[in-house]
């Protein structure tokens, strides 16, 4: 057993010397990318995300293939009592997931279109949350003084809000207006605002903490002594160092927002019917839980898998950027 131990360093020595030029200079981004590529679980998550995005983009095409429409009532699929005329919500090649009890709309078409609204709102809300959080965090951390006090206190107050209760209330009040009821675009924008707005203190606090420690670092002093403007320090010196955190938290905020959109829709204050959303389908399916359980399963699994996909990928991304992680 001693022989290999003795010879091993000798064998490796030339190899290390030859590889030396490659060792130098890998950025955090490159290291993270290298780790991510080897993280199978994260790649599965990424694959699932791509799948859901493609489904959302090509929803009309998918519906055209099966010749179904999310708002048509396929009453011929229902029995006399208004229930699907067969097991599994009367699933068939014509209606892959069957039809919903009552109105007889195609569950597949509604689920596929639901992906569009769910992802659109979740992504837009994430942009809003992260945008507000990053700007507020940087100002609070970098400026300090009364600005920091003001922003930090606002964050404390927002964190004490019963957010879900408040979002529902705001949506109900706006929901009374005729212009809101008639426009899907306004509904999407307002949902985005309600979901996105209350989330910013969480990321704002993290960014503030990071900026507080970063601004004392030597490279910021160096930039300042070279005569760099505040803007240059903020955007060229600080922001690149914040990007990994922003990226990781954005990926982890998306699933939270998907769940928030689904929850508000489940409570009936999300996008208004006939616009299909997963939460609303789940809420509708409760009434026929006993007789058509598969109607509960389809939108429920859609929410679950979509959220899981982002969580898998977000976890992988966080590990990849973790400075304490092994390379």
């Amino acid at each position, binding site marked *: 057993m001693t022989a290999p131990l003795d010879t091993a360093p000798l064998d490796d020595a030339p190899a290390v010397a030859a590889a030396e030029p490659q060792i130098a200079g890998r950025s955090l981004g490159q290291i993270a990318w290298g780790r991510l590529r080897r993280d199978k679980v994260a790649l599965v998550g990424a694959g699932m995300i791509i799948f859901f995005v493609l489904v959302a983009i090509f929803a009309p095409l998918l519906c055209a293939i099966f010749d179904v429409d999310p708002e048509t009532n396929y009453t011929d699929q229902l029995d006399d009592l208004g229930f699907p005329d067969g097991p599994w919500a009367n699933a068939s090649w014509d209606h892959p997931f069957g039809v919903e009890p009552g109105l007889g709309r195609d569950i597949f078409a509604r689920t596929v279109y639901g992906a569009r609204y769910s992802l659109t709102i979740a992504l837009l809300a994430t942009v809003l949350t992260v945008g507000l959080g990053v700007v507020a965090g940087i100002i609070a951390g970098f400026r300090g003084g009364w600005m920091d006090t003001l922003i930090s206190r606002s964050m404390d107050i927002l964190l*004490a809000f019963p957010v879900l*209760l408040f979002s529902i*209330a705001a949506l109900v*009040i706006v929901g009374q*207006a005729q212009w809101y009821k008639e426009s899907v675009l306004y509904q999407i924008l307002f949902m985005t605002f309600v979901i996105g707005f209350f989330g910013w203190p969480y990321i704002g606090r993290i960014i503030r903490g990071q900026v507080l420690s970063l601004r004392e670092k030597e490279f910021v002093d160096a930039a300042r002594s070279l005569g760099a403007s505040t803007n240059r320090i903020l955007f060229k010196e600080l922001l690149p160092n914040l990007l990994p955190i922003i990226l990781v938290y954005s990926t982890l905020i998306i699933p939270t927002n998907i769940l928030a959109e689904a929850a508000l829709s*489940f409570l009936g204050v999300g996008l208004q019917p006939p616009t299909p959303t997963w939460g609303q389908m789940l809420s509708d399916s409760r009434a026929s839980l006993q007789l058509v359980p598969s109607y*509960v399963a389809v939108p429920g699994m859609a929410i679950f898998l979509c959220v899981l996909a982002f969580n898998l990928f977000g976890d992988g991304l966080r590990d990849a950027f973790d400075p304490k992680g092994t390379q």
Partner: protein
Amino acid sequence: MFRYIVRRLLGAVVVVFIVSLVTFFLFAIGPKITGSSPAYLYVGKNPTPELVAAIEKSFGLDQPLVKQYADYMKGIVAGRTFSDGTPDGVRECPAPCFGYSFRYKEPVWTLIKDRFPVTLSLAVGAAILWLVLGLSVGILSALKKGTVVDRAAMIIALAGVSLPVYFTGLILLYVFVYGPIRFLPPPTYKPLTENPVAWFQSLILAWIALAFLYAALYARLTRANMLDTMSEDYIRTAVSKGLTRRKVISKHALRAALTPIITIFGLDLGALLGGAILTEKVFSLPGLGYLSIDAIDKQDLPVIMGVTIVAALFIVLANIIVDVLYGVVDPRVRLS
């Protein structure tokens, strides 16, 4: 310590005050935009405009908003009396008066007091379940890092945080209540003091649904904290001192790993006590969450105001309690 608590309590009063202010103006201005009035709830369908105006006047709804808000705040401390002008129309609302629900025909505080035990039962039961489950799975996972047990536990935990509580709830309801096996009766809430068995039966599925979500979160968190702590220098010192693994874990690692959990647990419980809206809705539990969405649905402003303020109060108080406890448990933290 005493000064710290007093200062924090004063801060809490400010926060709750601002929450109440925002809620009040949202609901006072909101109906004006959409053209409805709380008075409609009192007079019923299709009233004459004169009657609505008279009701608004007698309940002070025609007053400037600032005056209305001041009256509301005064009512919380001193109580109020509402009157619609007729001898039968006098409504007493003793302190703390969070307003009077025109729909339920009862003071809001009475409604909140009646519903709170339901939410309390739900939150406390679920909390016990998720603490035991989440912490033990998290610790076990960290100690067996990389093994099949760890991987399986973490996959289940990741699924747990990705499942919306209302979907888990519907699955549980199907499997145990409405599906082929009728294991439990459909949930109808009964107070613990009245019928403990029915109380337990109506809550058990809700506890499991809610606890599954939180247990998953806590297991992930505990595992991460444990692994962080186990790689600290003082753990290595303890091991090299010759302490047994059991002693190192129980005396040194657990304490440091679990203190951050106290913070999160306090905040989660505080938020839940203000009403677990989704869980209460799925399992038809008549708690604060159910009361509030019902009130929002019916535009019952006083009830929404009351529940929002109480919910904010729970969150803020939980924050303070957690910070004080943290100072006690973690000797590195000194409150000042």
